[in-house]
C-alpha cells in the first residue's frame, strides 16, 4: 500500500522533472538542427533552408582532421597513463595501511576539486620554470592530472569491496602476484576501470581550460571549435563536427553505464 503511494509523484513534480530534462537536452537538438542549415554566417531560427553540404565541407577541411586526431591522441595517451597510475594508487590506498595514506588520497583527488584555471596556470609556470617546451606531451601531462582522479575514484570504490582475503586466497592456492592480478583483481575491477577510463577519455576530449595553458601551437578539437565560433564563415561545419562527436561518444558511454551496473551486482554477490 505504502509503496504504491510512494511510487506515484504529484503531477507538478512530473512536469518539473520533464521540463528540467528538456532544458538540458533540447539545446543539443538545436546543435543538430543547425548542422543542416543553409545560412552559414549566423544562427537564425528557424533555419531558412536545410542542406547536407556541410558534411562534405567538413570532410574536406584538413584543420578539422588535425584537431580531431590531436584530441583523440591526447585523450588516449592521457587515459592510458591514468589507468595505470590511477589503478596502482587505488590499490595502494585501499589494500594497505601506511603513514600518510589519507593525505595521499586527498592529494590525488585535489586536481579535480581545484578550478581548471589554477591547474592550468600552475602547470604553465612549472613547465616554463623547468624549460619544457609546450608540445603535445605537455597537453597530455595536463590532462593526465585530472584523468587519474577519475580512474582512481572508480577503482578505489571497487577495490574497497574486494575483501583482502580474496587476494590472500589466490596466493594461498598457488597464484603469484601477476596471476592474482590477472585472474582475480582484474576481473573484479575491470568494469570499474572501463567506466573510469571512458569518463577520463571524455573529460580529456572536451577539456578547454587546462589545454589553453599547456598547449603550444596545436589546437585540440574543443579549442578548434571555440576558434571556429568566432569566425563568420562556414559556421555549420562546427555543428557537423559536434554532432559526429556526440554520436560517436554516446554509444561507448551507454555501454559503460550498462557494464558498471551489472558489475555492481557481480561484485556485490561475494558475500
Amino acid at each position, binding site marked *: 500500500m505504502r509503496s504504491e503511494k510512494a511510487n506515484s509523484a504529484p503531477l507538478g513534480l512530473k512536469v518539473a522533472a520533464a521540463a528540467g530534462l528538456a532544458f538540458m537536452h533540447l539545446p543539443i537538438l538545436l546543435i543538430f538542427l543547425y548542422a543542416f542549415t543553409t545560412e552559414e554566417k549566423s544562427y537564425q531560427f528557424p533555419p531558412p533552408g536545410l542542406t547536407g553540404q556541410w558534411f562534405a565541407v567538413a570532410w574536406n577541411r584538413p584543420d578539422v582532421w588535425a584537431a580531431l586526431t590531436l584530441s583523440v591522441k591526447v585523450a588516449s595517451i592521457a587515459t592510458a597513463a591514468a589507468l595505470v597510475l590511477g589503478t596502482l594508487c587505488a590499490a595502494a590506498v585501499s589494500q594497505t595501511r601506511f603513514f600518510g595514506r589519507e593525505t595521499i588520497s586527498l592529494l590525488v583527488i585535489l586536481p579535480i576539486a581545484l578550478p581548471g584555471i589554477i591547474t592550468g596556470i600552475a602547470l604553465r609556470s612549472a613547465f616554463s620554470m623547468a624549460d619544457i617546451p609546450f608540445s603535445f606531451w605537455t597537453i597530455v601531462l595536463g590532462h593526465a592530472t585530472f584523468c587519474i582522479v577519475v580512474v582512481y575514484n572508480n577503482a578505489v570504490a571497487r577495490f574497497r569491496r574486494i*575483501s583482502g*582475503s*580474496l587476494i*590472500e*586466497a*589466490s*596466493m*594461498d*592456492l*598457488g*597464484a*603469484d602476484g601477476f*596471476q592474482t592480478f590477472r*585472474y*582475480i583483481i582484474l*576481473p*573484479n575491477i575491470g568494469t570499474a576501470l572501463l567506466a573510469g577510463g571512458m569518463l577520463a577519455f571524455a573529460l580529456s576530449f572536451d577539456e578547454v581550460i587546462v589545454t589553453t595553458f599547456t598547449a603550444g601551437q596545436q589546437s585540440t578539437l574543443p579549442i578548434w571549435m571555440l576558434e571556429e565560433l568566432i569566425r563568420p564563415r562556414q559556421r555549420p561545419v562546427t555543428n557537423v563536427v559536434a554532432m559526429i562527436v556526440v554520436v560517436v561518444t554516446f554509444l561507448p558511454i551507454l555501454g559503460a553505464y550498462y557494464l558498471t551496473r551489472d558489475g555492481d551486482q*557481480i*561484485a556485490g*554477490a*561475494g*558475500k
Partner: protein
Amino acid sequence: MTTAVLFDNVSRHFGAVRAVDRVNLQIAEGEFFAMLGPSGSGKTTCLRLMAGFEQPTGGHIEIFGETAEGVPPYRRSVNTVFQDYALFPHLSILDNVAYGLMVKGAGREERRKSAEDALAMVKLPGYGTRRPGQLSGGQRQRVALARALVNKPKVLLLDEPLGALDLKLREQMQEELKSLQKSLGITFVFVTHDQGEALSMADRIAVFNEGRIQQLGSPEEVYNQPKTRFVADFVGSSNVLSARLCQKLGLRAAFASLRPEAIAIAAPHNGALSLSGTVVAQSFLGATNRIVVDVDGARIAVASPAAHGIPSIGSPVTISFAARDLHPMEDA
C-alpha cells in the same frame, strides 16, 4: 613420526604489540591440531605465519622439514580455509575449486575432473555451474574446503571454520571435518575461540593468551588439569581456589582448579576432602543444576545432577570432592 609444522621460539611483533611471543610448538603429521584462545591471543597470527601471509620477527619455522621463512604463500604446500571463505565472486563454483590447479597449469579436463571429485567429497556434487552468491553459508564453507583440498596440501589450515554457521550446522560440520581428516590423513590445524569445538575435534590443543601458549596437551589434559589460571577460566568454567583455601585443604599451591562436576553436595566419604558453606545462588540447566556455594567468602560453583534436587538459597551445605580432582596451578 614426521613433524609437519615446527615453531622454534617464533615471535611476530607489530610495532610494540607482541602478537606472537616466543612460541614453540611441534605438530605431528596427520594430527588434528587446535589453536584455542580469545581474540587477540595470537592464534590467528600463528596460522598466518604457517600460511605465509606473515613473516616471523624472530625464531624459526619449518614445514615438513623445510625452512618456511621468506617462502611466499604460493610456494608452500599448505592451503587455507578462510574465515569468510573468500570464494571468488566472479567465478563459478567449479572454477573456484579448480583455481589452484589452473594457476599451476593443469589441463582443462584434469581440472574439471579433480574439481568435481572434490565437490563430491564435500557432498556438493553437481553444484559446479552455480556462483558463490547462490549458495548458503554452509555450502560456501564446503566449497572453500573443496577448493583447498583439491590441491592435496600437506597441511590444511582452517581459520575459525565454523564460526559463521548456526549451531546445528556447526555440530554436523564438526563431525564431517573430523571424519574427512581421518580418511585423508592430512594434518589439520585449526583456529577457534570456541573451547567446545576444540575439545570435541582436536587431537591436541594449544591454548593461547597474549601471544603465548599457556598450555599444550590433549583435550583431556587441558580440560582436567589446567596448568594456569587462564586455562582454567577459559576452557570451561573451573573453580579457581585461592592459596588460603588450598592451605585449608592441605595443598601447597598458589592456586588450584576444581571442576564443578567433580564436586558433590554431600558429606565426604572414603577420605574425600570437604568444605562447608552456604548456598548463594542456584539455577536449573536441564540435566544438571548449577549451585553456587559461598565458602568463607569464596564462591564455588557445583554442577549437581538434577535428580539430587536443589537446596534452597541460604541453607548450609557441605561440599565434597576427591583429592585427585584438585589440580595445583601456576599463577598466570
